[in-house]
């Protein structure tokens, strides 16, 4: 199931103030994240959320840490109790300054939608091997560890580790031993 979450709407609900159009301060970010989490609880265990920044004017570092990094960290750390996936939409270069800094701080990555709907790219902290593995999965539409290892001519054990990181970081979905790029319905 896919859920669209407009962050600017969540912001106004979370702080109960129509005048706020900027994602600034930690308390605001924490309130927005809590609201997003509450929305995610309304959908099944495995779901895809499109987190839409299109109408967000600006986001500062503190808020990016609360809204983006702390939303993703429980999954990257293997501590989340649900199987949600996230695509971030409408992330401008202005937003990216703050978001990139917090991703680097935590050593994580996220999926960002490109100009065409459904066109996603991982951004943030990934090794060259992880990026290459993600690209192979995207090209193939869905792939096993052996598929990716064969294409990259690398040991399956190494690729298994890379794909597992990509899965934990919510960049790849995993089902029946095969990996698939989040949000892309191909193959």
């Amino acid at each position, binding site marked *: 199931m896919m859920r669209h979450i407009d962050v600017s709407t969540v912001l106004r609900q979370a702080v109960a103030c129509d005048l*706020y159009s*900027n994602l*600034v*301060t930690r308390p605001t970010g924490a309130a927005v994240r809590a609201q997003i989490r509450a929305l995610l609880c309304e959908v099944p265990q495995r779901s895809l959320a499109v987190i839409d920044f299109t109408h967000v004017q600006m986001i500062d*570092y*503190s808020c990016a840490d609360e809204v983006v*990094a*702390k939303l993703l960290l429980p999954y990257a750390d293997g501590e989340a109790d649900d199987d949600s996936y996230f695509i971030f939409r409408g992330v401008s270069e202005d937003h990216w*300054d703050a978001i990139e*800094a917090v991703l680097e701080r935590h050593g994580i990555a996220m999926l960002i939608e490109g100009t065409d709907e459904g066109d996603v790219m991982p951004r943030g902290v990934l090794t060259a091997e992880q990026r290459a593995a993600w690209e192979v999965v995207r090209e193939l539409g869905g792939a096993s560890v052996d598929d990716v290892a064969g294409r990259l001519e690398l040991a399956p054990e190494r690729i298994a580790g890379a794909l597992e990181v990509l899965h934990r970081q919510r960049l790849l979905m995993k089902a029946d031993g095969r990996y698939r790029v989040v949000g892309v319905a191909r193959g």
Partner: protein
Amino acid sequence: MTTVLTLPPSLDEQSFEQVLDQLAGAPPDAKLLVDARHARWASPYGLTALLCLAQAREVKPGFAVPEADDTVSYWARAGFFRHAENLFELHGQVPRSRQHESNVLLEITPITGSADVHEVVGRIQQKAAQILTHELKIDAKATVGFAMTLSEVCQNIVEHAGRGGWVMVQTYKWAKRLGRRVVQIAVCDAGLGFRKSLESLPGRIVDDRWDDAAALEEAVIRGVSRFRDRGRGQGLAGARRYVGRWDGKLSVRSGTARIAIVPSWDDEPPLAEKLAPFPGAQVLVTIPERVTTSER
């Protein structure tokens, strides 16, 4: 006996040290008179730091207002007297200024909570775009970073000071020091300061090398925070990146030390120690007008 602090004609982050030198040695409950009669000009740092000076005193200090009409008028338009009348016993004629009639980019605004940060960021955005692109000839892309930097340095008060502080933003021509226009964000508080804030971190070792300068180095250069949360400490790091990108300067004073990210156009030492003590933290961001190579 009253200790008289004479303000220099031009009050900025450098000359404010002269005021603190005069204050050093006066006990916290000593009666003070801040003599601003001969002051002609003050930067955002000078005005906000003056409010902090009064806030830190146990006994309300006296304040002799500037004699020059244009000076007292500008200080009023900057919102100084609106806050000073609660902190000082004012001596002299103070003009009434109505809010929003000012040409100040952001008048002196108290920061006590997150809502204040939303307020100042919202107010600055449109004005900042105009100033940065037209007056300072900086890329429009700098506007968002400017608001982010303002937000983060203001949050420093909310998160760490333990009491309210003030912010002011203004642009003006820095004729003597640079010969160019600059925009400055000054955020000052008289709260805990960096050293005490970081000392509250559990497990912090306070040895004989630990002082205000060490605390500033940890917070400003290494991004250490009093919170264990690994996402903390990014605000000042972000401000540092922003000033680096736009050839600006970041200066943070706390206690008896000041640390600065110094651009090529400035000759201030990156670290100053053994300054006269002043409580809290005083942050100054300076972004200069952009010049082309041929204009240099």
